[in-house]
């Protein structure tokens, strides 16, 4: 069975949605990580947030989010981060 699958509109929609989704995930995860650290340890060094915000891989960010929840101190998190980089 043939399908009427294509059109500029449809391709634009599909491509745009995928790109947007990735962007949204990355942004939300970056913000969440900084938020967790702030809630748990008070101040977060600017350099640290900057390196978190420099990561664009959702998988890596998810791992870091887990670290942010369980790490004992900002320093242990920073170590994990430099390992990941």
């Amino acid at each position, binding site marked *: 069975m043939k399908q009427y699958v294509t*059109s500029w509109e449809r391709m634009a929609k599909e491509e745009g949605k995928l790109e*947007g989704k990735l962007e949204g995930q990355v942004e*939300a995860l970056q913000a969440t990580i900084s938020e967790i650290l702030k809630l748990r340890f008070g101040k977060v060094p600017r350099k640290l947030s900057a390196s978190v915000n420099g990561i664009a891989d*959702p998988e890596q960010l998810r791992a870091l989010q887990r670290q942010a*929840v369980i790490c004992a101190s900002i320093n242990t998190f920073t170590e994990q981060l430099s390992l990941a980089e």
Partner: protein
Amino acid sequence: MPREQADYDSPWKEILEQFFEPCLRFFFPPLHAQIDWSQEVVFLDKELQQISFDAETGRHTVDKLVQVRLLGGAELWLLIHIEVQGQKEAAFTTRMYVYNYRLYDRYQQHVVSLAILTDENRHWRPDHYERELFGCRVRLDFPIIKLLDYEERTGELEQDENPFALVVLAHLRTLQTLGDDKLPVRKDFKKQLMRLTWQRGYRPKQTGQLLRFLDWVMRLSENLEQELQQELAVEEQQLMNQYVTSWERMAEEKGKLAGQVEALRQALQETLQLRFPQISPDMLETINNITQIDRLQRLHREAVISSQLEAFTEQLSLAE
């Protein structure tokens, strides 16, 4: 029914709102002439939703409830119904009546109901609702537009400066080319209509909206679409790419929201599992129903700072 039909309602919904004034000018000139177009046109989506019953029946419909001002200053409500599917006559006229009645009942408005019939059956022209019992009669007459009637006037439509003439033309050309064997003809129509749209010299925004409509409605097979793209002149391809980029951006906004929600749900579930391993799968599951970003953020903050799972659970039920 052609399988493309499911795709028709969204483009019609969009184009009707974007080209409301030209639509009335095209189909209902006497009514159009009575409206004060310097006043704001308001789409009463919420009011319409209040009286809708399509959610229950699962039908795809295109209705727009619109508030305009007449030249004398009086307020007028219009209900424009675009009949995309071509349903049973009794069901259709009943629906027209019920919506008109419900709007009167709920908002005390004498609503002008109009119907645009887009189906392929020349003889299907329901234009009134009537029932009678022992001398007690109820009747609603409503103006209808049959798009097929414009078929003999396609030459005229091609010359008409009204953008809605192109909308009608796109629909007629689509109806004329249903079936896989006719798609090559549709490709040529599509190219012609794209060019007509460019030649009109509308504002870029309007041009983009029209191109989006006809691209949306005049679906082709993948091969033919590629052929069409190659047949366009270089300048035309560049123009088209600009529009595609803007559509991509529109879709990106939607996708971004979905991505944020998904990531926040996952983050919340991860945090909860790490901090409270005893948490029940059911509770984790309920998080998948939350769609508001700010609520997810609030709950996540709670999940990080709560010392006991109970404190979080309380927040979860409170916020609901």
